[in-house]
């Protein structure tokens, strides 16, 4: 049986139809077992997750039903700080670092009742596109659809476990130059890389500050949208975060315009192109107007400019870890 979507799950939890403790215990058992082969997690926060679940369940019994993510298990990319859980950004350099605070996105998710189950595998500090470039002492996460292949990266563990799990779950990922969309696409799940500034990066172990975005990964579009809605918004701790409105409900896209850049499909694998075009048709059927646009300069110089900017910023950020 397919796992309930996040919204269905939360609604069942609120009605008392699902035991939050039982659900998270089963999911943790699955995660621990899978980790021997697939290495989705750099840390599994069993104790604190079960404790959180018990608190939520006790709350529900006395009528505390609030929270858009009530009881929903959430995994978090290793580079995003979770209080008291070893957060290493996939690097041995940060071994033993247990943050004393939650990143804003984690705090927001917890406030809505999410249960943090662990830190997901990634390329070391995010430097990679395939999760093959893990730090010394880390294992590469493997693709659940075919363990001989990689998960994509750098948010590989987040996308891999989201695809693997049979339970309701979503993941918080992070992208500098494709690290949410790439693994989501490799693992057949939905990744949402938001516009720069939509989501606070306070508590993120930065890669390149002018490019880093925190976003969501889910089994369905609605799962990813629900989580993104919770973690987005202005935060006085991140001066680059913007004031924004709620993403609202699923059907609010009607009448909106969606664009895709034609150059990006020129060297694209035919299967990928076909799948994208199929999704574009679906959008049109849902009431979007879709337009093909051209971004010739981006295609020609984008990657070179990206690497120049990102590595220059990364060298500044990493200097603090190398001291």
């Amino acid at each position: 049986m397919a796992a309930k979507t996040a919204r269905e799950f939360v609604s069942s939890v609120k009605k008392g139809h699902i035991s939050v403790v039982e659900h998270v215990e089963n999911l943790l058992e699955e995660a621990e077992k899978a980790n021997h082969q697939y290495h989705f997690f750099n840390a599994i926060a069993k104790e604190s997750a079960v404790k959180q679940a018990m608190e939520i369940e006790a709350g529900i019994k006395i009528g505390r039903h609030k929270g858009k993510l009530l009881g929903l298990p959430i995994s978090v990319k290793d580079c995003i700080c979770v209080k008291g859980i070893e957060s290493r950004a996939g690097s041995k350099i940060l071994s033993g670092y247990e943050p004393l605070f939650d990143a804003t996105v984690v705090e927001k998710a917890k406030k809505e009742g999410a249960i943090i189950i662990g830190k997901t595998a990634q390329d070391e500090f995010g430097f990679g596109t395939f999760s093959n470039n893990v730090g010394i002492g880390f294992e590469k996460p493997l693709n659940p659809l075919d363990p001989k292949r990689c998960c994509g990266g750098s948010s590989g563990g987040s996308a891999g476990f989201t695809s693997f799990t049979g339970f309701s779950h979503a993941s918080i990922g992070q992208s500098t130059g494709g690290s949410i969309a790439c693994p989501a696409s490799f693992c057949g799940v939905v990744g949402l890389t938001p516009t720069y500034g939509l989501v606070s990066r306070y508590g993120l172990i930065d890669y390149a500050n002018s490019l880093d975005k925190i976003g969501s990964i889910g089994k369905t579009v609605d799962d990813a949208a629900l989580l993104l809605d919770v973690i987005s918004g202005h935060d006085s701790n991140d001066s680059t975060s913007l004031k924004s409105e709620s993403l609202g409900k699923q059907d609010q896209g009607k009448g909106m315009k969606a664009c895709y850049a034609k150059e990006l499909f020129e060297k694209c694998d035919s299967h990928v192109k076909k799948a994208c075009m199929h999704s574009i048709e679906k959008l049109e059927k849902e009431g979007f107007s879709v337009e093909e646009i051209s971004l010739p300069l981006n295609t020609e110089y984008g990657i070179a400019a990206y690497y120049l900017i990102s590595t220059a910023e990364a060298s500044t950020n990493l200097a603090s870890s190398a001291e």
Partner: protein
Amino acid sequence: MPKQSVDKKLLLRVAKNARLNLTEAEVEKFLPQLKEILKAFSKLDRVSVEKEKPSFQPIPLSNVIRKDSVEKSLTQEEALRNTKHKKDGYFLGPKAL
């Protein structure tokens, strides 16, 4: 941009700045990679940007100043928890004098 030739000497200088001790085998491995990366960047040399205004951030930034009021903060013990370099309740830094 002045031409910079990518050779072993440059690689070792960069490694020293990054506090990396590279083995001979690693130098052999990374030198062609470094050349390849800089070759990719050189594409940008062909673009004329003289008329463009420099930009530093994708969004307009303004100063954020919090209210001058007492907020809960870390205890001294908490603030020092993640470092090995501490003494008498303070961070222990390298000798300056």
